[in-house]
């Protein structure tokens, strides 16, 4: 016999769920203790008690102030991204595509474009059918299609688009030079997003070499996941960097090589900036 969960027996008292983090509890305890110490200090005219009260109150308030809004487990990042790569894998294997992924530079959002070319403002990746296939024409890209016929391939949204949008809030990628980007971008990724332990970028002619230590997305490269598209598109972090490179240079960018060190502790990625 099924029972409606809304109908609870009268004897069962409603349980209040109190989810207060330990740091908040410590902060409140500090605050209360500190204020009590300050009141006592005034009554007893004790300088030492006043110092203790001032310090404890201050640190209590500080603990409350610096407590982060919300943190999630880093493993959630990879588990939520893996399903998207599995979908792309299925598409690629179904169409038997073996080409590279080209990160197409979008037109600036503020630029004027005719209505039929508005699709050029979207950040997209072109996965070519054959290894030697060229980039699709502007008209085909602008139509916002998924499946292209000449050259054969698919146009998809890059996995790092979400991260790219966050990066764009910090740096105007269209207004800085490639060398400046290689200096600024690692600092933003490390300090503001904390998604890797160390990250370095340097340019060599038309190539950009990226080294990531302790990436939060390292599990995506785990051979157990059997993801093929991760080597074509890169993880969300390398994908976002490829998008940023495409925006900065105004040229298509491909992931040329990815080297994964044991345990994913270090990931080397080489981007190629396409000429012409």
């Amino acid at each position, binding site marked *: 016999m099924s029972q409606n969960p809304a109908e609870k027996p009268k004897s069962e008292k409603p349980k209040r769920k109190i989810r207060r983090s330990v740091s908040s509890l410590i902060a409140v305890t500090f605050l209360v203790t500190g204020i009590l110490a300050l009141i006592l*200090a*005034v*009554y007893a*005219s*004790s*300088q030492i*008690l*006043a*110092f203790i009260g*001032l*310090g404890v109150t*201050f640190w209590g308030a*500080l603990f409350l*102030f*610096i*407590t*982060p*809004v919300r*943190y999630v487990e880093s493993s959630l990042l990879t588990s939520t991204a893996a399903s998207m790569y599995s979908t792309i894998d299925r598409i690629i294997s179904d169409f038997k595509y073996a080409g590279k992924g080209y990160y197409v530079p979008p037109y600036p959002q503020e630029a004027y474009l005719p209505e039929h070319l508005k699709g050029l403002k979207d950040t997209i990746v072109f996965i070519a059918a054959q290894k030697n296939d060229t980039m699709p024409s502007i008209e085909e890209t602008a139509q916002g299609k998924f499946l292209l016929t000449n050259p054969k391939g698919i146009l998809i949204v890059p996995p790092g688009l979400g991260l790219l949008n966050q990066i764009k809030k910090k740096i105007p990628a269209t207004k800085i030079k490639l060398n400046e980007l290689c200096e600024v971008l690692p600092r933003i990724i*490390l*300090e503001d997003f*904390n998604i890797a*332990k*160390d990250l370095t970028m340097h340019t060599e002619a038309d190539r950009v070499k990226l080294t990531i*230590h*302790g990436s939060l997305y390292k599990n995506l490269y785990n051979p157990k996941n059997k993801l093929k598209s991760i080597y074509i598109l890169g993880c969300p972090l390398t994908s976002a960097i490829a998008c940023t490179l495409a925006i900065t240079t105004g040229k298509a960018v491909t992931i040329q090589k990815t080297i994964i060190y044991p345990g994913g502790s270090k990931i080397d990625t080489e981007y190629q900036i396409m000429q012409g």
Partner: protein
Amino acid sequence: MNFPLSLSDISLWFAVTAIILLITSELLLSLPEYSAQFMIDKKKLRLAALGCGLAFLFTVLIRI
């Protein structure tokens, strides 16, 4: 029933607190590989440190 701390005492307290907070926030911001383990809002910590430093300077200005 007067508050037992003078302006000099509060100024000293602000100075010591500001130094502790400034050093902590600078260390946390300059070493992201280690500070990633601490689940605190580093920007707010820096703000608090700067606030304490400014409060100390303000007490110095009053005393001059």
